[in-house]
């Protein structure tokens, strides 16, 4: 096909139906209400997304998914960003179910994936102990005991842990190298979930494990061998997070440009002033750069090319864009943008979560340069 930026027909179909669906189910009022609700996210929204087949786009057909390409999944994400969809698709489906797909035994996949796709089982990935997303940031301990393991530690910023049935927990097995993953019942004895009030209004939790027992069948993948697969799944998620930022950026740009066209000061629309034009193009440039890097990385995934470096560049740029786009749009708006009731502030708050989610700019820049300078690593 040789250099083309047009999605194919199936991708356009998914994107258009997503836009229509979210326009209907996620108007700004619904997004605001979800952030204030006690439930982690609106159950009917999740059920609707399951009905649309979106919880299993890349899940193999034998486990109830569509077995479609990564780009087929990708097209959802700009829309999720544009509409600030209050649903944990990225964490629960892409990361959570993605890890089961990547590492699970046939039994684990059989037991879990079909339920996830149907929207009946929710997985919360509990990966970070400190907010960092490198292998070295994982410190929760799993001690071998009675043929199984006992876990102790606290996981932070766990998305939708309150609604989750199952946790995927990254830990280090005492005395062994490497990272291991465990599937743990969210209601198991010793699991305590604490909601974290946060700038984004997302259902983020601290999950503390106090002598939580899990059988050997709770291990996901090899003991100490989970990191490569985990890293690959996190790369996919990072690309989608970048796509989400790019989609939100389209909307932030619309908000800023509309305001600049219509707000009259000193007798002219403020959008006629070059200072405001600079700010609006700042939004557009950051949005465009993020979209370029994200789309390229997504394409590499489907082509089976190495993508770690490109995923990191996309997420690094997305982190910067999340800050630059919202900042610049606020500068265009001045007073009104500072008001909670104005839509822009919804984007600003969530963008702050996106900035560091799945690794902040510095983390990904450091990873990208390492992969550039030492590609073998």
């Amino acid at each position, binding site marked *: 096909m040789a250099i083309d930026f047009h999605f194919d027909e199936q991708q356009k179909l998914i994107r258009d139906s997503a836009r229509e669906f979210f326009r209907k189910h996620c108007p700004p009022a619904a997004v605001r209400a979800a952030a204030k609700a006690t439930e982690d996210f609106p159950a009917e929204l999740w059920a609707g997304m399951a009905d649309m087949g979106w919880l299993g786009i890349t899940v193999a057909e034998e486990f109830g998914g569509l077995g479609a390409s990564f780009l087929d999944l990708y097209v959802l994400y700009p829309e999720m960003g544009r509409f600030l969809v209050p649903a944990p698709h990225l964490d629960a489906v892409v990361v959570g179910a993605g890890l089961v797909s990547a590492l699970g035994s046939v039994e684990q996949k059989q037991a879990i994936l079909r339920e996830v796709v149907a929207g009946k089982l929710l997985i919360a990935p509990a990966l970070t102990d400190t907010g960092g997303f490198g292998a070295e940031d994982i410190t929760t301990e799993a001690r071998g005991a009675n043929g199984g393991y006992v876990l102790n530690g606290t996981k932070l910023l766990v998305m939708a842990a309150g609604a989750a049935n199952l946790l995927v927990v990254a830990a280090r097995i005492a005395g062994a190298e490497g990272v291991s993953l465990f599937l743990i019942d969210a209601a198991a004895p010793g699991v305590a979930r604490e909601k974290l*009030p*946060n700038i984004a209004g997302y259902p983020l939790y601290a999950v503390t494990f106090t002598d939580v027992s899990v059988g050997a069948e709770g291990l996901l993948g090899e003991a100490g061998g989970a990191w490569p697969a985990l890293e690959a799944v996190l790369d996919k998620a990072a690309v989608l997070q970048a796509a989400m930022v790019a989609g939100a950026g389209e909307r932030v740009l619309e908000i800023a440009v509309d305001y600049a066209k219509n707000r009259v*000061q000193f007798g002219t629309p403020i959008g006629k002033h070059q200072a405001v034009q600079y700010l609006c193009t700042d939004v557009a440039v950051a949005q465009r750069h993020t979209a370029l890097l994200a789309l390229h990385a997504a394409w590499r995934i489907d082509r089976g090319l190495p993508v770690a470096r490109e995923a990191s560049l996309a997420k690094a740029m997305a982190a910067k864009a999340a800050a630059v786009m919202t900042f610049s749009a606020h500068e265009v708006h001045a007073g009104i943008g500072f*008001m*909670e009731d104005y839509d822009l*502030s919804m984007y600003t708050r969530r963008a702050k979560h996106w900035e*560091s989610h799945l690794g902040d700019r510095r983390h990904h820049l450091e990873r990208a340069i390492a992969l550039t300078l030492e590609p073998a690593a």
Partner: protein
Amino acid sequence: MIDFLPDDTPELRAWRAEVRAFLAEVVPGGMHFDYDFDESPEGWEKSLDFWRKVGAKGWIGLTWPKEYHGLGRSAIERWILWEEFANWPAPGFPVIGHAVSWFLLRHGSHEQKLRHLKGIADCTILWGEGYTEPSSGSDLASLTTRAHRDGDDWIINGQKTFGTAAHQCQWMAVFARTDPNARPHEGISCFLVPLDTPGIQMLPMHNMAGGQQNQTFFENVRVPHANLVGDVNQAWSQIWFHQGGQNLDQPGHAPDVMEYRMLRTLKEVFTFCRETKRGGKPLIEDPVVRLQLAELVEGMEIIKLQSFELHSTLVNGTAEGWNPLGGVFNQIHYREFWPHFAQVCMDIVGPLAQIEGGRWAQLQGRIEHYFRGSFGNHAGGTAQLKRMTAATRGLGLPR
């Protein structure tokens, strides 16, 4: 003679000690309170209690003429007072009473000064801001609130917006169009309006940092002619910010509690970096973080030195080589540096900075709150507007 030393006499050093002793007694340990971003009733109560005690000392009107409830003291004494308040910290002065006081001292009648400066000096009357309108922000000349003469009174109709903490105030300085036929900036007057006058209604708006701003509606609001400040239709040229700097009517610039909040925030981040390990090493030893911190120190240092320069300009005139519109350049730096500063602090604190409270929050979520507040950097005119003012009035580029 070049000097950066405010207290170079024993008298001034004694004065600083007196201020410090007062603070130690009245707000031991200091008190963080930004009325812009805080609606807690206790915060307001304690802050007002503090400022009434300051008022009782006569220090609110420190440099005002004695006949108008002031103490007639010098600009450098005022610098020292505010520097101590900012350093301590004392809570920020509630709403815009200080701005109103400079305006009244310059343009008010003898009777108005006598009457209204008293409540400001005591901190018994709080004044709200009455110029911004929904479609008239920095462009005062476009305001649409109207006032027409009716016998000995004026009748005001219209709407003001973004009135920070106006619901806490008893009075408002309201700018209204009194000559609809005049050119936009030539038909505006200023009225002193008690906010319990019939016809005034207030609706709250909430900003991203948790402060309350307000929309104030005026429907046939009647104020006596005696409440007109200065001459009719002359408010545009009188207004205190018309020179591009809010401080130009003051006897000499002084440090600001809000700006010093940045310095305190930086010190908190220092502490955080000393106490936090990342990748097994204290953050304070991370070369990237150290450079980030150094650039924040640099920006802060400039803010502090800008205050010195502005003070010198207002007291001693513009020194050669310094732009007479220095105040506007200060405002550019502050408005551009503040959000940058907040962003970098968030970056340094890391992903957990997004947590607002509870035991997993870093520094009790103060950095996050500070970050949200930084989107209020437009107050008093955007950075873009200040840039244009600096370019045209400061550098002489064509408009």
